[in-house]
């Protein structure tokens, strides 16, 4: 049998710190990442009630700069970057000419003509090559894959601000949602944004990779009495699901259009030169014609947990399935089996019911609005 050599897994600067802290490590998008430390439930609840610290250094950072940087970003990013002030970020998509999703990302405006794009780990090389190619018509703009220059930590939870404030000179209370500042965290040069993937208040912290461990330790130590704990990708997934956030590769990909994914709000329909945005024409057409299917959030009515890949059915037993569950599990805070799936548009009204094929058994589910969880609005009944 032929020996196949697989490339070794990439490691973030915190790899040995995770291992010495007892994290269960797993492969993820070519990286060796912590899945969990004290357990997914424990970590999820820590983020919902106190704070959790995540290493997300595997994600990619692509910088675009030059006199025509804005025009360049406008071509490749679905949202309207001209609305970003310096020190502001927004959520956006990279689209194919068909209007389907190549990646989802955050776009930061570092300066009038300098942008930072934070992309998914599994897409870094493809995104960079595609961006470099498609910004050329914009003129004086260059893209750089700067991923190796950054480590990225995410501190998330209601106690995030009180934990981070002693470590940074900037007044965090003045930092609004989706804004960022440059400063020092634990004496280390950092860019801190009020963003996150959990549905809680929190901060994402870009630091030089060689200083990542120092910042990681400083946050855990300073936040010890407030109850911060290290958290892995397992909890990251259950938290974002409760918050109704899509996961690239599961809920959105190059077969789902931005409108089918119910992300029409990330499209800068009225931006200057919208027609130059890749994917714009296809989305205009789909908007006019109407989508035929759409993503919904759902919760199980019958017992059972709906998982990624399970068929969903709207017809009588025997009728072919109409789609698949794209994300699903039972989540620790809500303690409900919830998920996302694409359904024919006529079945997407909240309250509509459908069946999930759970390993051969049809179980009833109900469409519910997303997000499933909103901070400040809950009591877990």
């Amino acid at each position: 049998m032929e020996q196949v050599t697989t490339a070794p897994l990439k490691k973030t600067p915190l790899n040995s710190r995770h291992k010495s802290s007892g994290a269960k490590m797993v492969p993820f998008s070519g990286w060796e990442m912590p899945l969990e430390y004290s357990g997914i439930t424990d970590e999820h609840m820590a983020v919902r009630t106190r704070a959790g610290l995540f290493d997300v250094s595997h994600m990619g950072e692509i910088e675009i700069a030059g006199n025509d940087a804005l025009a360049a970003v406008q071509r490749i990013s679905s949202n309207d970057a001209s609305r970003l002030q310096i020190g502001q970020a927004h959520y956006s998509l990279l689209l194919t000419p068909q209007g389907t999703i190549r990646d989802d990302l955050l776009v930061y405006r570092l300066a009038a003509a300098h942008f930072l794009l934070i992309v998914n780990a599994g897409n870094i090389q493809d995104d960079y090559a595609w961006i470099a190619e498609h910004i050329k018509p914009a003129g004086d703009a260059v893209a750089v894959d700067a991923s190796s220059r950054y480590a990225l930590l995410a501190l998330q939870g209601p106690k995030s601000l009180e934990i981070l404030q002693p470590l940074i000179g900037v007044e965090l209370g003045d930092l609004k949602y989706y804004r960022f500042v440059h400063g020092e965290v634990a004496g280390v040069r950092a860019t801190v944004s009020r963003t996150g993937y959990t549905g809680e208040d929190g901060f994402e912290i870009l630091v030089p990779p060689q200083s990542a461990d120092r910042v990681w330790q400083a946050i855990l130590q300073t936040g010890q009495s407030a109850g911060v704990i290290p958290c892995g990708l397992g909890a990251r997934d259950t938290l974002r699901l409760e918050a109704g956030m899509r996961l690239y590769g599961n809920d959105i990909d190059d077969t789902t259009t931005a409108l089918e994914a119910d992300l029409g709000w990330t499209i800068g329909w009225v931006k200057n030169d919208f027609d130059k945005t890749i994917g714009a024409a296809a989305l205009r057409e789909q908007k006019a014609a109407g989508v035929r299917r759409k993503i919904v959030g759902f919760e199980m009515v019958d017992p059972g947990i709906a998982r990624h890949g399970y068929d969903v059915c709207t017809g009588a037993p025997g009728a072919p399935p109409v789609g698949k569950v794209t994300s699903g599990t039972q989540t620790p805070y809500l303690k409900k089996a919830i998920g996302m799936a694409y359904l024919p548009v006529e079945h997407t009204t909240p309250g509509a019911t459908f069946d999930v094929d759970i390993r051969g058994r049809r179980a009833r589910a109900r469409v519910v609005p997303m997000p499933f969880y909103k901070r400040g609005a809950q009591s877990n009944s």
Partner: protein
Amino acid sequence: MTYPAGFKYTKDHEWIDLSGDRAKVGITDYAQQQLGDVVYIELPEVGAKLKQGQSFGTIESVKAVSDLYSPLSGEVVEVNTALKDKPETVNKDPHGSWMIVVKMASSAEAGALLDATQYTDLTK
């Protein structure tokens, strides 16, 4: 981890507490560690007839679904329905969280089960 010497074990990480013709079945500490936080358990009805090696239910964590395999042939005479409401007890006390009690069809099958030493070696 020391596995209770009085139990028998299977390579599918179940423990069996034998008493006369009754076998109490659960999953081992190794199994619950592999699974992660248990959130859902599906168990059979009392009266279900099982063959050795047959799936008698499923145990689900946040990330995965695992089948539960009957270590012995026989009839299910008791089901721990309390576990369904508090599945996390499997993580906290795996060797104390029994799932089903099987009335064995044949005591000969018990000979094929592993003892604590053999099972410990398996998990190394």
